[in-house]
């Protein structure tokens, strides 16, 4: 599964929520600045390639996604393709103070929209 990295302009999680028409599963404060976004379904790739503070877009919904985000110091997770995380997944994220969003958009569309804004294209 390819992973993409971009580093251009910083935008807030609140702005990302707008761009992806996302719902917020947890995270009261969306003022955090996102400098880097990555898209992957393979958590080993996230562990190998992510940078601290990265926002993860993923189509994989499991406890391991949240634990990967915790271990790799990610700033948040966006579940794509309208996937709904189970209550225990949200509970773990809340405990870890990790914002979790969800969008009905595909991974490709989500990554494209964010890339467009962050890269200024």
């Amino acid at each position, binding site marked *: 599964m390819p992973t993409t990295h971009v580093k251009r302009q910083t935008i807030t999680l609140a702005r990302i929520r707008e761009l992806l028409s996302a719902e917020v599963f947890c995270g009261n404060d969306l003022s955090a600045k996102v400098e880097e976004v990555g898209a992957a379904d393979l958590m*080993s790739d996230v*562990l*190998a390639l992510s940078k601290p503070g990265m926002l993860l877009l993923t189509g994989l919904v499991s*406890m*391991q*996604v949240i634990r*990967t985000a915790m*271990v790799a110091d990610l700033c948040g997770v966006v579940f794509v393709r309208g996937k709904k995380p189970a209550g225990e997944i949200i509970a773990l994220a809340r405990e*870890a103070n990790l914002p979790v969003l969800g969008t009905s958009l595909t991974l490709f569309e989500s990554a494209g929209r964010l890339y467009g804004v962050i890269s200024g294209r």
Partner: protein
Amino acid sequence: MAAEEFEAEYHVTGRDYANAGRVSTNIKDILKHLGIDPALMRRVAIASYEAEMNLVMYATRGKMRLVVNPGAVTIFVEDEGPGIENIALAMEEGYSTATPEMREMGFGAGMGLPNIKRNADDFEISSVVGRGTRLYIRVNQAE
């Protein structure tokens, strides 16, 4: 960056996917508490998490031990399980014997052991087929 001495031991159960990763997030919390450098902490946590996932995915049960001293953070992993027949092959990126169930969790793509090695300053692996596998993962602290 010196930190105080600390030791902890954890038991990990094979196939317990709901809790897989719990030990590693706990280890990270401890390191944070001890004031370990964030970049170093992240390397330890990533290596530990991959090792924990391997244990949960492949072994029956096992132990993980965290040892912190001023020179380094070390993780010892010892499991009872099938062991690894060809360690050189297992260390190759992309080589995997994972089941579809493991891949559905976002692991099992043959990245685990290479990821551990990449994050460690010192890494040793030994295995006895039919008995189990041992890992030694050491990340050095700056003076």
